[in-house]
C-alpha cells in the first residue's frame, strides 16, 4: 500500500484556505437602474442554469471531449457584458461559455456546439473551447493560454484606426499572467494607448495548482499592472454591481481615448477545472467559504432588499429555465455533422482545396 503523505507542500488541499472578502454592502446603494440590475439577475441565472445543464449533459455522455464551466464566476461575465456596447468585442478563453451567452449567443446553438451537432454555433467544428459569435461581438474563445490577449489588442487597434469607439474586453485566468504573451500584450496596449480592457478572473488556481505557489507576486494581475504604467485595479468578482461599475469605468476610459486597463476580478469556481474534475486539491473550508459567497443568492437578497418583489425574481428564474429547456431540446435534435462540414471553410472560398 502506498503511504499517504499528509504534507501541504504536496497536497494542496491541506494548505491554509484562501477566503473571500466579505460583501461590500455599500454596493446596494450605488445608483444602478433597476432594469440593469434585473437584467444582470437574469444573466446570472442564464449562465448558471445553462452551465448546470451542460454539466448534466456531460455526465450523460452527450457532451464529448471537454468543458470548462464558469459556475461560481458568473458575476464577471454578467457585469462586464452589461457594461459593454453591442458592437464592443469580447475575447475569452476555453472557459468561455458564460462570456458567449452573456453577449447574446443563442443558448441552443451554444449547447448544440457542445454536443457536436451541425446546428451548433460553429457547425460542430469548434466545440466547447472555441465558442464564437462575431455578429454578437463575441470574437472567440481561445484555448491556448495567452494568445488572445495579443489578438484583442489587434481588434482594439483596428477600432482605433477605424475611429469607431469600440472597446475590446479580454478575459483570462490568473494562470495566464505567467505567460509571455500577457506581458507582450500589456506593453503594446499601453504604448499604443489601445481601447482594450484586460480582465483577469483570479479564481486562485490555474488548473490544479494554487496560483500563489507559481507566481512571483500575491496579486497575479494587479501587482503586474504598474510595470506597464497601469493602475492596479482589484474588484470583487462575485458582486455583479461592483463588476459592472468597475467595468463601466474602464470601458468608458478606453472609449474616450484613455487607453487600456488591467482589472483583477477575485472569484472562485465552484467545480473543478474541466470535465468531471472534482477539484479535490482545494481545502474544503475554502470551497465552503466561497460557495457561501455565491453571487446568485447574494444578488437575490440584494434585489429583495432594494424592493424587488420575490415574484419578479422567481418569474425570471422560471423564464430562464424555459429557455434552457428549449435550448436542450434544440441541441439534442440537431443532426451530427458530416462530410459537408468536414471540408467546409478551410479557405475563404468555402472549401478545402489546396492543389489543382
Amino acid at each position: 500500500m502506498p503511504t499517504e503523505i499528509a504534507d501541504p507542500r504536496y497536497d494542496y488541499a491541506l494548505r491554509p484556505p484562501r477566503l473571500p472578502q466579505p460583501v461590500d454592502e455599500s454596493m446596494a446603494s450605488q445608483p444602478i437602474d433597476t432594469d440593469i440590475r434585473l437584467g444582470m439577475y437574469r444573466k446570472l441565472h442564464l449562465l448558471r442554469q445553462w452551465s448546470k445543464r451542460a454539466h448534466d449533459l456531460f455526465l450523460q455522455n452527450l457532451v464529448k471531449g471537454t468543458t470548462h464551466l464558469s459556475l461560481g464566476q458568473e458575476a464577471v461575465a454578467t457585469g462586464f457584458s452589461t457594461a459593454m456596447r453591442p458592437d464592443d468585442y469580447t475575447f475569452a478563453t476555453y472557459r468561455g461559455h458564460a462570456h458567449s451567452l452573456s453577449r447574446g449567443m443563442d443558448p441552443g446553438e451554444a449547447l448544440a456546439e457542445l454536443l457536436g451537432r451541425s446546428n451548433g454555433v460553429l457547425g460542430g467544428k469548434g466545440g466547447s473551447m472555441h465558442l464564437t459569435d462575431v455578429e454578437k461581438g463575441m470574437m472567440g474563445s481561445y484555448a491556448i493560454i495567452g494568445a488572445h490577449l495579443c489578438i484583442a489588442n489587434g481588434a482594439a487597434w483596428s477600432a482605433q484606426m477605424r475611429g469607431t469607439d469600440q472597446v475590446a474586453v479580454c478575459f483570462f485566468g490568473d494562470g495566464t499572467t505567467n505567460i509571455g504573451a500577457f506581458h507582450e500584450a500589456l506593453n503594446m496596449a499601453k504604448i499604443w494607448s489601445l481601447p482594450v480592457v484586460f480582465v483577469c478572473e483570479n479564481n486562485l488556481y490555474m488548473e490544479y495548482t494554487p496560483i500563489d505557489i507559481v507566481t512571483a507576486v500575491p496579486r497575479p494581475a494587479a501587482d503586474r499592472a504598474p510595470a506597464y504604467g497601469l493602475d492596479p485595479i482589484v474588484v470583487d468578482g462575485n458582486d455583479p454591481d461592483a463588476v459592472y461599475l468597475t467595468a463601466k469605468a474602464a470601458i468608458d476610459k478606453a472609449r474616450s481615448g484613455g487607453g487600456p486597463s488591467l482589472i483583477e476580478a477575485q472569484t472562485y469556481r465552484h467545480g473543478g477545472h474541466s470535465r468531471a474534475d472534482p477539484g479535490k486539491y482545494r481545502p474544503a473550508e475554502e470551497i465552503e467559504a466561497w460557495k457561501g459567497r455565491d453571487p446568485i443568492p447574494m444578488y437575490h437578497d440584494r434585489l429583495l432588499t432594494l424592493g424587488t418583489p420575490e415574484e419578479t425574481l422567481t418569474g425570471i428564474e422560471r423564464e430562464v429555465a424555459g429557455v434552457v429547456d428549449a435550448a436542450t431540446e434544440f441541441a439534442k435534435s440537431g443532426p451530427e455533422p458530416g462530410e459537408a462540414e468536414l471540408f467546409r471553410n478551410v479557405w475563404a472560398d468555402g472549401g478545402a482545396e489546396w492543389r489543382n
Partner: protein
Amino acid sequence: MAQLSYREAVAYGIAQEMRRDPKLVMLGEDIAAAGGVFKTTVGLLDEFGPDRIKDTPISEQAIVGAAMGAAMTGIPVIAELMFSDFVAVTWDMIANEIAKTRYMTDGQVALPLVIRTANGGGVRFGAQHSQSVENWCMMIPGLKVVAPSTPTDVIGLMAASVRDPDPVVFFEHKALMAMSEEIPDGEIVDELGKAKILREGTDVTIAALAAMVPKALEAAERLAADGISAEVIDVRSLMPLDTRTILGSVSKTGRFYTVEENPRVLGWGAEVVSIVTDEAFWDLDGPCIRITTPHIPLPAAASLEDMAIPSVDRIYETVRRTAGGSA
C-alpha cells in the same frame, strides 16, 4: 520599365497595395524610420506615415496577434517578422490561431493578412538566422505560403497575397535581395497557386523554389551543353500548390528532380514527389530525386554553408549522373 532590385521590389509591392487600399497597414520591428533590417521597407514611412507603417516592440506574439485581431475586424494587415526563424517565437499565433480560426468558427472569421519574413541562407548568419522554414508553414492546414524568386514576382505575389482573403506567409529570400531586373510598368498583380515554367525542356523536369531557382536555371544551362534538355519550374507557391504544371511537365520529360534549400526530412519536395509517383508513375523513366540541404542545422562558415545548401554544381552533377538514357 524600371530596373528594380528584389529588396526594392518588396517596398514597391507594398506601396502599390497601400495606395490601392487606404485601410491596409503594416507593423513590425524597425520597419518605419529604419526601413527594415534588410532595407525592404525604405520609403514607406515617408509616403504612408507612422499610423500605417508602425514600429513595434520586440514582441513577435504581440505583432502577429495584433495583425490577427485587426484582420478579423476589418483591417487588412501586413506583419513583418524580421527573420523567418522567428516564426518559432510566435508559432502558436501562426499555427494554432491564424491557421485554424476560419475553420473552427465555420467561416465566421476572415483573416486577410500577410506575414512577410526574410527566409533562407547563403548569407553566413548561422543556424538561427538562415533557415528555410517554408515547410513549417506549408504543413499547417489554413495557411497559404509563397516564396518568390524574382523582383517582378515579389511585386505580383505581394499584391496577390494582400488581396487574398486568407492568411498568407510570404517568404522573401535573403540571398536574392540584390538581384535586379527590369519590371513592367503599371500595376503588377499575380496569382497564388501558379507555378511558372521558366525554361522549357524535354529530358528532365527540375522544380525549384526561391533562391534555388536561379541555381536550377544555371545548372540547366550547363546540362544543355551536355545535351540534356531540362525544364525548370519555379514552384513559387507551396500552398496552394500548382501540381498540374508539375505533373504536365513530368509526363513530358519522364524524369523529376526537386531542388530544396530546406533540410532533407519532409521538405516540400517530398510532398510533390509523392504526388508525382501517385499520379504520374507510368510516365516516369526513373526515380524522382530530391536535391536538398542535408538534415543538419545550417552552419555559419562560408565553406560549410556552401557545402550544405544545394549548389549549381550539385544540381548539375546529380542530374548528369542520374538522367540516364534520357540524354
